[in-house]
């Protein structure tokens, strides 16, 4: 599986605190000038002019509810918390645009021959906010917390289990983790059981924990401690000054920051709801709307928000239609594909892909800020994205042709195709609530399929609430034949967590030997060679377009509005240079 840690927590789409899905409307629907493209947006904002000395930045965290306030990388669960933490604490390793570790971070690393042992060296000038140096002990301590039997969070996963001696430590049989060794104050060595290329793509837990602060707190109680909630410290560019639980945080500059003192005096982070974020931007109440500006509001405010520049990046997420092809076998913990499933015929699936016009969906519902998707590794991973894949395109005639050929014909003349055995074919479609567009989109798909003679019905005649939806999808509810969902794909391209035979998240329950092979290959030792890995994943992407266990519908853009006075800021997913951010004037720029 992938590991997380950067600010791009990956969460099921339509999650209840997900602002990005909500509402889409536009003024001049239908006219060409109402359509935008991600290419029109810069990713960074650097040209605002000379930054003044100091100044305070108001960061709006767009979220429809409060942030939970678990302000520690080891323990946080929700995406909003990650936004809060990013200002005061950061990963010791930095990553490039493909989320692969580089040597520019607070720590550098060396890899052994067999790619199984990593030696990390923490920079000398890397200190905690209280002046204590960040040590190898501190880093180790993170592992000791997460691996501990009393640990209350959810970070313990395969990449931890892959560490030598972690299992023994986790089960309580060992007091220390044999695979992690503190060489000296600033040097740490971690030995893995297997060498995985994923490790280098965000697979290493690179967050240190100030041991001198947490030492005396039992691990089971850390989550609740004031050190996590009220006055957390980190090694990042800003220090936490005060926290209003759930609502706001104020930060002051960390003059001692290892990349140099920040340009700003401080940052104020406030939660703004997606409903009011535009007004907050307009009034200058916030300078940056991070965490998911509702893109559907963009066409309406583009003209009026003259004091704001919109930055845009391609989000590492896609929406898809899934076909239920089998079930999950809990005993063996793997997917069992059923050749007799209603959707088992790949031609049927291919025809359904041809039948829908995803570009129209993107243009009409999202003004072009979502667009037709082709493969399951999206353009957010430029090195791995296979733009040559020949994915089915919108072509109802082709769909009809395929269906006719595959024997789905309208036997009884009611305009609805029967299955090859001449039996009635009704496909049950499950979709989630989430924002205004969810329902019309679901209906659009149903209509589009009906247009090629397929009878698709919305499960229970309604959209399902997030929890109910996943409850049923996860349980392989026989009433669900197809479903619409979305994935945010995290920092690692490895698709095993979503499409592997042993992945519970493989909701379509698709498996094939080829798939197993490619997925294993992609994360094997050979794949430390990037070119090899690219090849493997390109092949896998082709396979997915052939087998169509799911088909991606749209990719999406993530917009971040930024006040004109802000400089040095970037919306890129891998960016973390807060010390460079400054403002060009004391007060926010207001609309003319």
């Amino acid at each position: 599986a992938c590991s997380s840690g950067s600010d791009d927590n990956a969460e099921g789409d339509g999650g209840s605190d997900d602002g990005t899905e909500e509402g889409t409307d536009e003024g001049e629907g239908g006219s060409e000038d109402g359509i935008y493209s991600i290419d029109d947006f810069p990713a960074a904002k650097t040209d605002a002019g000379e930054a003044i000395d100091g100044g305070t930045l108001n960061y709006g965290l767009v979220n429809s509810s409060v942030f939970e306030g678990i302000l520690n990388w080891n323990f946080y669960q929700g995406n909003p918390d990650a936004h809060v933490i990013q200002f005061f604490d950061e990963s010791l390793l930095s990553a490039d645009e493909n989320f692969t570790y580089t040597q520019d971070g607070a720590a550098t690393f060396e890899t052994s021959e067999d790619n199984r042992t990593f030696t990390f060296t923490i920079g000398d000038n890397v200190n905690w906010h209280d002046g204590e140096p960040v040590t190898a002990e501190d880093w180790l301590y993170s592992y000791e917390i997460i691996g501990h039997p009393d640990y209350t969070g959810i970070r313990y996963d395969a990449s931890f289990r892959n560490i030598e001696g972690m299992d023994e430590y986790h089960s309580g049989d060992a007091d220390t983790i044999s695979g992690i060794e503190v060489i000296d104050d600033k040097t740490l060595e971690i030995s893995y059981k297997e060498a995985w290329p994923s490790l280098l793509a965000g697979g290493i837990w690179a967050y240190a924990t100030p041991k001198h602060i947490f030492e005396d707190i039992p691990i089971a109680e850390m989550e609740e401690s004031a050190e996590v909630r009220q006055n957390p410290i980190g090694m990042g560019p800003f220090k936490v000054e005060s926290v209003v639980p759930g609502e706001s945080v104020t930060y002051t500059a960390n003059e001692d920051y290892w990349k140099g003192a920040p340009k700003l005096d401080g940052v104020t982070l406030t939660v703004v709801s997606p409903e009011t974020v535009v007004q907050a931007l307009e009034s200058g109440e916030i300078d940056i709307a991070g965490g998911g500006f509702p893109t559907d509001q963009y066409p309406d405010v583009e003209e009026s928000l003259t004091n704001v520049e919109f930055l845009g990046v391609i989000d590492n997420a896609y929406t898809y239609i899934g076909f239920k092809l089998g079930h999950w076998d809990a005993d063996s913990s793997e997917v069992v594909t059923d050749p007799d499933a209603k959707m088992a015929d790949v031609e049927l699936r291919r025809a359904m892909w041809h039948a829908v016009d995803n570009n129209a969906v993107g243009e009409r519902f999202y003004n072009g800020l979502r667009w037709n998707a082709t493969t399951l590794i999206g353009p957010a991973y430029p090195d791995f994205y296979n733009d040559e894949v020949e994915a089915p395109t919108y072509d109802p005639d082709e769909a009809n042709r395929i269906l006719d050929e595959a024997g789905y014909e309208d036997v009884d003349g009611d305009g609805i195709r029967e299955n090859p055995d001449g039996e009635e074919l009704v496909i049950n479609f499950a979709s989630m609530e989430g924002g205004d567009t969810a329902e019309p989109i679901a209906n659009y798909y149903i209509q589009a399929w009906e247009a090629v003679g397929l009878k698709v019905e919305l499960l229970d005649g309604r959209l399902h609430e997030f929890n109910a939806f996943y409850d049923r999808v996860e349980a392989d509810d026989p009433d669900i034949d197809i479903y619409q969902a979305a994935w945010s794909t995290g920092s690692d391209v490895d698709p095993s967590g979503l499409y592997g035979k042993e992945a519970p998240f493989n909701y379509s329950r698709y498996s094939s030997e080829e798939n197993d092979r490619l997925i294993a290959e992609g994360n094997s030792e050979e794949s430390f060679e990037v070119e090899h890995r690219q090849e493997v994943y390109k092949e896998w992407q082709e396979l997915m377009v052939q087998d169509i266990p799911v088909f991606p519908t749209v990719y999406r853009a993530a917009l971040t509005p930024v006040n004109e006075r802000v400089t040095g800021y970037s919306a890129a997913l891998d960016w973390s240079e807060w010390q460079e951010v400054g403002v060009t004037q004391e007060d926010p720029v207001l609309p003319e």
Partner: protein
Amino acid sequence: MWKFIVRRLLITIPQIIILSIIVFILAQMMPGDALSGLIDPSIDPAAVEQQRERLGLNNPWYIQYVDWVGGILQGDFGQSFRFKMPVTELIGQRMVNTVLLSVVTLIFTYLIALPLGLISGRFNDTLLDQAITGYTYIGFATPLFIFSLFMLWIFGYNLGWFPTSGSVAPGTEPGTIAYWLSKVYHALLPGISIALIQVVSTVQYLRSEIIDTKQKDFIITARAKGAGEQRVYNKHIFRNSLLPIAAFFGWEITTLITGTVFVEKIFSYPGMGLLFLESITQRDFSVANSLVLLFGTAQIMGALLSDIILSIVDPRIRIK
């Protein structure tokens, strides 16, 4: 009196127990649990399952219930699954806000209701009364949420007189005067919004109460004593009509609870109502259950309070 209160409190106990069971079963029947929201490829499902086991979410409901009740009996309402902190502490934070909002609402309710009710009752069927009655009609007909949206837009955004979200300005030091002033300031617009809508029932009640009292025989007695109009109103009519309003106070709590849900949502005001809505959608049942229990208890206490107030102010009602 004390016996009465004790008796009422004793009756409350089985009610709360049943309420807690209902609430608990409802929670169990909802699809998903606190962790089913973690549909995240970067989180190992095994870790989630482990946590689920640790939180006892896999136990049968009655065992969970017994654990939960056992905790409550020791003053421990459990942990919030989502916030990872004790429910008591979490609700405590939010309660301050909701209580503040309620107090502001109540103050405005009475500030508006009393003069309007008194005027409209005393001068019934005059133009002024018709204006006030018209207001109450419209108030009754206007759903609170539409009105609040409207208020937020006018006074929060367009005029910018009030903060548009949150319960306190960021960075204010807790405990300082500025902090509390900021809190009150944040509660003002939502509070007034509820008050303006909610007040209408009190106004109407007061009005009809006054019109009623005006026709009572003892008013004629007072007039026959030679009491002037002003005195008749002040000493007899208003006083007697206000008593039931005083007793309303307890019931007001009930309506407040409902009202704050809408308003907290619209004003993104982090109070208990909003917390409840989120707890339901996020299946943070320890919080949701505790809140329902709390609201239920508040409702019981409100009713009790009403009865007690009434028995204090009305000599005819003697509680034994």
